[in-house]
């Protein structure tokens, strides 16, 4: 199989449930050309090197894959380079984590626990013996949390939920994108993207006029060393934080439940030994990275690596989920081992763009999983593999049906 074919297969929707054999195929050439001006990185060491190489840019406007509509104008943190990236990340972190805001994340704990229990109480009240882990449990928690932290009105959730869903489904980097259906999804996604952007623009404009609670308003009215963030940049970052807070955490909670149920004994093991939960979550994150890669990167110079020269100007996809199964680094890479040691995976990225929300996501997933393990009795997967969502980048199940005996108090 040529790298081109392997990559096209990995990107196909029909292989969304298990793209990993194609990544293994690709890894024979750890840095491989898969299309005109496009290179993918599937080896662990190569990915580690390139994630820290200042000749790799994340600035979307420098990428050869960038459609014109994305070029120009303020960009979000994940699609920008230093010094702008560093400054914007500092501006956001001031209102999100230590040293300036050490309480924001820990203060969410009671809310998360209440939400998780509330969702299970609801299922219990209906005597449900079949639940959808995505819709009935995983989705509502991170959304409520990110809205609270950002200051986005939670009553607007139904509208932006649909926009985000359509927007992500429209960004298809595989062969399905070229089909008639793919074109329809792309058009729908574009409309949704415009609507989401308009919504956030209005929200930011309102915060400019009337300061409110939450991170977004604080960004606009900050008197810190980097000053306030411009409204345009705040809109771009609001989109990033809302989608990331919305999507990847949902997928991670779902992936955790799915992985435990796929591996007999592990649900009971974690129930018995909850101190293993944090390590188990990292192992799920390694196996099922919710951001498989992020397609904004490109080479600013010719880069020689692992026998390949990436020419300046090429798009470079660092495929975290592929490198996370590199047998040169992870013994039995396809095996779920909740006690794996030295698990330095790329499930949260690597280098300066490492997941900013990681500490919040870890808290949410830990609490959700703890609650689920304690209260849900004898869960079993109904359909495996479950149906997946369209996106190759933000990969996760659309639904995850499980049968249960009961929900405990």
């Amino acid at each position, binding site marked *: 199989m040529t790298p081109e074919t392997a990559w096209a297969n990995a990107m196909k929707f029909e292989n969304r449930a298990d793209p990993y054999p194609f990544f293994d195929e690709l890894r024979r050439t750890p840095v491989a050309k898969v299309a005109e001006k496009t290179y993918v990185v599937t080896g662990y060491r190569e990915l580690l090197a390139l*994630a820290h190489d*200042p000749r790799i840019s994340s600035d979307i406007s420098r990428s050869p894959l960038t459609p014109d509509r994305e070029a120009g104008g303020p960009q979000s943190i994940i699609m920008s380079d230093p010094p702008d990236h*560093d400054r914007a990340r500092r501006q956001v972190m001031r209102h999100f984590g230590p040293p300036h805001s050490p309480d924001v994340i820990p203060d969410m704990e009671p809310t998360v626990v209440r939400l998780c229990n509330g969702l299970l109480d609801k299922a219990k009240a209906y005597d449900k013996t079949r639940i959808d882990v995505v819709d009935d449990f995983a989705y509502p928690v991170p959304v409520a949390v990110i809205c609270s932290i950002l200051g986005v009105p939670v009553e607007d959730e139904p509208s932006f939920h649909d926009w985000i869903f359509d927007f992500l489904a429209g960004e298809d980097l595989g062969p399905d994108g070229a089909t008639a259906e793919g074109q329809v999804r792309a058009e729908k996604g574009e409309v949704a993207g415009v609507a989401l952007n308009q919504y956030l623009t209005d929200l930011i404009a309102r915060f400019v006029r009337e300061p409110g609670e939450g991170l977004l308003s604080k960004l606009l009215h900050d008197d810190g060393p980097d000053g306030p963030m411009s409204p345009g940049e705040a809109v771009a970052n609001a989109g990033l934080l809302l989608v990331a807070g919305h999507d990847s955490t949902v997928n991670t909670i779902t992936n955790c439940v799915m992985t435990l149920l796929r591996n007999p004994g592990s649900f009971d093991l974690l129930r018995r030994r909850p101190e293993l939960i944090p390590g188990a979550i990292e192992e799920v994150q390694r196996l099922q990275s919710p951001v498989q890669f992020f397609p904004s990167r490109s080479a600013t110079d010719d880069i020689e690596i692992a026998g390949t020269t990436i020419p300046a100007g090429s798009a470079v996809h660092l495929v975290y989920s592929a490198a996370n199964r590199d047998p040169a680094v992870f013994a039995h890479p396809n095996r779920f081992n909740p006690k794996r040691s030295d698990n330095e995976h790329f499930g949260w990225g690597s280098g300066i763009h490492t997941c900013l929300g990681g500490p919040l996501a870890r808290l949410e997933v830990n609490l959700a999983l703890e609650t689920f393990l304690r209260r849900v009795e004898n869960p079993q997967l109904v359909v495996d593999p479950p149906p997946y969502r369209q996106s190759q980048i933000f990969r996760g199940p659309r639904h995850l049906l499980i049968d249960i005996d009961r929900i405990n108090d």
Partner: protein
Amino acid sequence: MIADIVDAFKAEGRIVIVGASLAGLRAAETLRDEGFNGRLTIIGDERHQPYDRPPLSKQVLKGWVPADHTELPQMRELDADWRLGVAAVGLDRVNMEVHLADGDKVPFGRMLIATGTRARQWFNPKEAALQGVFTLRTSDDAARLQAALNAGPGRVLIVGSGFIGSEMASVCRELGLAVTVAERADAPLVGALGGVIGEIAAQMQRDHGVDLRTGVSVEALEGDLEGGSSGHVRRARLSDGTMLDVDVVVASLGSIRNIEWLEGSGLATGFWGVACDAGCRAFDINGVVTDNIFVAGDVARAPHVLYDYEFLSLEHWDNAVLGAQVAAHNMVRLETDRVPHLPLPSFWSGQFGVNIKGVGVCSFGDEIVITQGSTKERRFAAAYGRDGRIVGAVTFNHGKWLEYYGAMIERSAPFPPPPPGYDRPADMTPIPARFPDPRVPTGTPDVVLTGHDPTQRGAEFRPREER
């Protein structure tokens, strides 16, 4: 068979670890992990369980964490015989015994030297005995100094501005204390990072209100009793004739390796520590490798392939951990299973709101180039080169990029490195790094290249009077 001897040793041998700090503890844990079930004795001159030192000059001095709250986590049950609060005073290699200060003799089959370093004391013992004169190395030191800072002294004088001296100056400013730093060299941190970075460090100190005085030494301290010769320190005389009113003086003059107890043992000891091979086995005085004595941590010096096989002393946290693990592994393995300790040195410091991180051996270089960011904004990366290859790198608030430099150092990549695709510094021309002559005793750097031959560079300022 030798394999049977090793197995028998693992089952019922005796290992003594001298030194109960980071290296000693991690070595003990590794020995047990490696299946050593024999008798394990850990000897430490401090009465404390192993504790972590980096917080002492930071969180502890700031008053965030009490000095006795930095105990190191113990990763597993050790089943060890702890001999704390009693120093080792001698090594008898013929009878294979460690002699203790209380007269006890502890026999061993194999032993590990992990005695580390101690703070160099103020050179005048009478002045050193004045109240208000401190050094900082141990948890007890930190407790005393923290109490003195907490009492709100009028002015603190820090003598020496290596990493520890600079961190203490930073803490003083955070606590709102007036502080003078006296440095014999032209700038802070020059021993470890050279004059180019030293200038930036000097500016950082001055911007934060430190009264930094360079090119001066402190000649005398005066107390408030008996014509200045006793009581509490109140004045300091600098080499330029200035008199300073001070209430606290911290001598931050670098460290001395704890090798005196090995005198007469016939090992290759000296100013730079105990020489060993890359497998942590000690050399005897003739340069012949020993079989049963291993060395790890700050007190070890070993040849490093990346640096022309020169002997390196690395007073870094991870060198203690990794060196101890390798030493312990090799202590209970057959020759063919032994592994080398070839660390890519790395270090960090926090001062004046800046996170300084480095990799490699900067002081091995003679040129420096700013490679990323802005020195003015104190967020940048810089690479050090020698003979056209990269040998070290330092970052100020740019630590996420170290991986890139570390990988280049590991493969001796060309210097200067290629320019980044963004955030380029205004000037990317390599310039002399301006390291002081290593024989000039300024702030002793954390990494020292000690030459192939113990007499080559080190012997010249071996402080005989302290032995």
